[in-house]
């Protein structure tokens, strides 16, 4: 199962190191003050050469990450620092250090590091950064980049085998670069101070040294049409993406006269489709989820594989023992983070991680870090009855069973019979004895069996959060798929809610999760469930990270409690895009009351007794109703064209009726 997939996987990244970007999920303005991308060095040769070297240094970000993973190369990091320190001696204290700091941030070109100190070198780096295409943006574009840069491109594909040698070479180079930087900086600093100063102010287009000298022009609609037919040059597209992002960041100042914001957006989306290979519909859908620079980061992150993670099976082993056993087999791993005590992240392995004797004996499960989250949110307790509605291949099911310590019973359902094979295999391999595997359509569920304490609905979804795993999503999802999926999800979530017993002493919870980031599969579904089932409300997921769900999105307004849901993004949390919502089911109100009494219904639901309120006697008073019935009859007759009998008595009442009508 996991074995083959694993073999394909390139070296993993550290989960934690990526988290630097966490605080920046909402692009802060200060970031935008810095014209990010394609500013070329100001035509000074020295500066250009330095540019390149500096790029090298600054791109150290990911590299450092790799070194980090390697226990014995931890001194690699030190080396870099040393190099920098040498540079410092040359004078300019803080500069190269600063570079180091900036390193990881610049690796995503549009990164806006709000917390970054911005002394003068920062301008410098900007001017440098632009010339060469941002390394991550450029899987295919090799041509015009300078040699250190293309070098770096290969680095991206560092294999386990050559990693150490490479990192050593890089360290050496980095040290040299830092030194070179220092000297050049001093030289350049003197005379380009003023130029630097107005970089931020000016439209920087006029300084594009390398790629092309003319200022950036947004193509007209006709040109765009034209380009759709011909294949555009990757470099042009790339540059245009950067420019558009920049312009959209500070639209008033940077936009061309007479061009509207939507034109820029349209151009940007078109470029994204051609550059990253999304279909237009999906690109637009995803683009609108984020702020502009963040969207680009998201698309970037989808090109990079997520780290390999495993979950300790607490039924068979303990994390420390497992880690020790795997380390003895030549696996390099580390706990994922503080939020889980069963997860391990695998950095590199000399053996296939999906076929070690420990794996076969069920000591761990290969599972994405994001898949831990819904189960943690569900928090199943021993001796409960739990339903996993869409469970194959069993990662979450076995996690649930492990958390319940093999007590109670877990119903693992999956609609697809073929996928239940791997589900059963995993359940048995991990030694879960309390699991019943069945294959129903999830929508049949309250009929098959109800009264569950907890239900996990990891709904079938478009998979827009796992594009890095399955790139086919980019092209094969259309508007219709989304409509169908969200319809199915809405049906499923209602079934899930109905399967839960509100009387449950320990539970009464539902967790809804998807591996998708779109709003119509997540918040919209949650909101729909809240509207359809008044006895259900959202509760905190007890996940300590993740961004809150949208309470309104592009004109749609959801219930304010939707903010209790959690979203996870590849570019922010370095795990698959994911969504988790947790509901609590209360007892249904005993009497069906009209909607305007929802408030009182809730009170009734909360303390579980209806009698607590003083209730007036509700019943039929035929005397009082009589004139109304009379009046209705007359009206009916009139409508049929019959002549109603003359009004005999109680004209006052009918008059009031008329007034009210």
């Amino acid at each position, binding site marked *: 199962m996991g074995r083959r997939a694993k073999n394909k996987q390139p070296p993993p990244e550290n989960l934690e190191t990526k988290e630097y970007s966490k605080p920046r999920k909402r692009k802060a303005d200060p970031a935008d003050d810095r014209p990010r991308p394609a500013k070329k060095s100001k035509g000074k040769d020295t500066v250009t050469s330095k540019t390149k070297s500096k790029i090298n240094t600054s791109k150290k970000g990911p590299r450092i990450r790799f070194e980090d993973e390697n226990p014995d190369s931890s001194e690699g990091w030190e080396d870099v620092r040393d190099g920098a320190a040498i540079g410092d001696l040359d004078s300019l204290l803080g500069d190269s250090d600063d570079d180091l700091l900036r390193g990881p941030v610049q690796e995503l070109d549009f990164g806006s590091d709000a917390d970054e100190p911005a002394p003068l070198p920062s301008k410098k780096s900007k001017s440098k950064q632009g010339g060469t295409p941002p390394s991550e943006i450029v899987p295919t574009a090799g041509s015009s980049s300078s040699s250190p840069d293309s070098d770096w491109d290969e680095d991206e594909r560092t294999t386990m085998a050559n990693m150490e040698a490479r990192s050593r070479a890089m360290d050496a180079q980095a040290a040299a670069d830092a030194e070179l930087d220092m000297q050049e900086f001093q030289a350049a600093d003197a005379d380009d101070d003023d130029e630097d100063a107005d970089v931020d102010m000016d439209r920087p287009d006029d300084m594009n040294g390398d790629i092309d000298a003319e200022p950036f022009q947004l193509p007209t609609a006709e040109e765009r049409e034209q380009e759709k037919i011909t294949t555009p040059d990757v470099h042009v597209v790339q540059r245009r993406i950067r420019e558009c992002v920049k312009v959209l960041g500070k639209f008033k100042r940077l936009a061309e006269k007479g061009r509207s914001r939507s034109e820029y957006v349209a151009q940007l989306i078109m470029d994204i489709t051609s550059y990253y290979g999304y279909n237009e519909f999906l690109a637009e859908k995803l683009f609108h989820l984020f702020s502009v620079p963040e969207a680009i980061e998201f698309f970037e992150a989808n090109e990079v594989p997520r780290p390999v993670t495993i979950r300790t099976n607490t039924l068979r082993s303990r994390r420390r023992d497992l880690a020790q056993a795997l380390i003895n087999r030549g696996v390099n791993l580390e706990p994922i983070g503080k939020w889980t005590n069963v997860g391990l992240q695998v950095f590199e392995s000399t053996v296939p991680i999906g076929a070690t004797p*420990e794996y*076969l004996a069920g000591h761990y499960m290969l599972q994405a870090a994001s898949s831990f989250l819904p189960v943690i949110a569900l928090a199943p307790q021993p001796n409960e009855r739990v339903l996993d509605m869409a469970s194959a291949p069993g990662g979450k099911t076995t996690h649930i069973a492990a958390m319940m310590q093999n007590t109670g*019973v877990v119903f693992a359902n999956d609609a697809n019979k073929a996928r239940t*094979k791997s589900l059963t*295999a995993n359940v048995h391999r991990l*030694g879960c*004895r309390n699991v019943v595997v069945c294959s*129903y359509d999830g929508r049949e569920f309250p009929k*098959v069996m109800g009264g569950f304490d907890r239900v996990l609905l990891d709904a079938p979804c478009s998979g827009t959060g796992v594009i890095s795993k399955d790139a086919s999503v980019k092209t094969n999802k259309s508007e219709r798929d989304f409509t169908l999926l969200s319809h199915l999800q809405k049906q499923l979530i209602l079934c899930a809610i109905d399967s839960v017993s509100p009387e449950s002493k320990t539970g009464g919870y539902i967790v809804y999760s998807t591996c998708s980031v779109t709003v119509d599969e997540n918040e919209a579904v949650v909101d729909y469930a809240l509207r359809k089932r008044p006895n259900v409300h959202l509760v905190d997921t007890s996940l300590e990270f993740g961004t809150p769900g949208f309470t309104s999105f592009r004109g749609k307004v959801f219930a304010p409690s939707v903010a209790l849901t959690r979203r996870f993004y590849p570019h922010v949390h370095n795990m698959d895009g994911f969504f988790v919502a947790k509901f609590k089911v209360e007892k249904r109100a005993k009497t069906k009351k009209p909607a305007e009494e929802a408030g009182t219904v809730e009170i009734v639901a909360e303390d579980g007794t209806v009698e607590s309120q003083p209730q007036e006697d509700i019943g039929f008073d035929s005397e009082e109703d009589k004139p109304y019935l009379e009046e209705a009859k007359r009206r009916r007759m009139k409508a049929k064209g019959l002549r109603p009998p003359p009004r005999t008595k109680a004209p006052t009442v009918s008059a009031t009726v008329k007034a009210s009508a």
Partner: protein
Amino acid sequence: MRPLTEEESRAVFEKLANYIGKNLIHLIDRPDGAYCFRLQKDRVYYVSEDTMRLGISVARPNLISLGTCFGKFSKSGKFKLHITALDCISKYAKYKVWIKPNGEMPFLYGNHVLKAHLGRITEDTPEHQGVVVFSMNDMPLGFGVTSRSTVDTRKLDPTSIIVFHQADVGEYLRDEETLF
């Protein structure tokens, strides 16, 4: 899902007794609640009664598995133990074989255990006795049948087979399609 018939339970118990002997009663008399054997589509499941009762509500065509699968009946009525039963068998096994780390992978690929890979073996193991195969750090890897008694193995040369392979945990990967 239905209870086993007389004949079927005899077949199952005979097979199990080959590995765990008298400990068989521990499978039935458990301190942590009643357990029972159930047959569903040729397969025999060992499941706690509580789970079984809840499992009754699942219709026969939709029920894939419940509890632990012990094995299956072949068309001719013979019972074959599956690797999934390893959990219970290994806990109560009478005769055990430990294999050295260099023998682990060959065994997990479905090969017999050679004498060269033999780390330890329960004393006085008779010939053709069902044994559970462990790795040196007591991780159950599978089960098989001895080819010789413990005494006889001493005379054998290193390449000769000690335990005939019957099932190993590698089947979870190799035979996932047919196992369930």
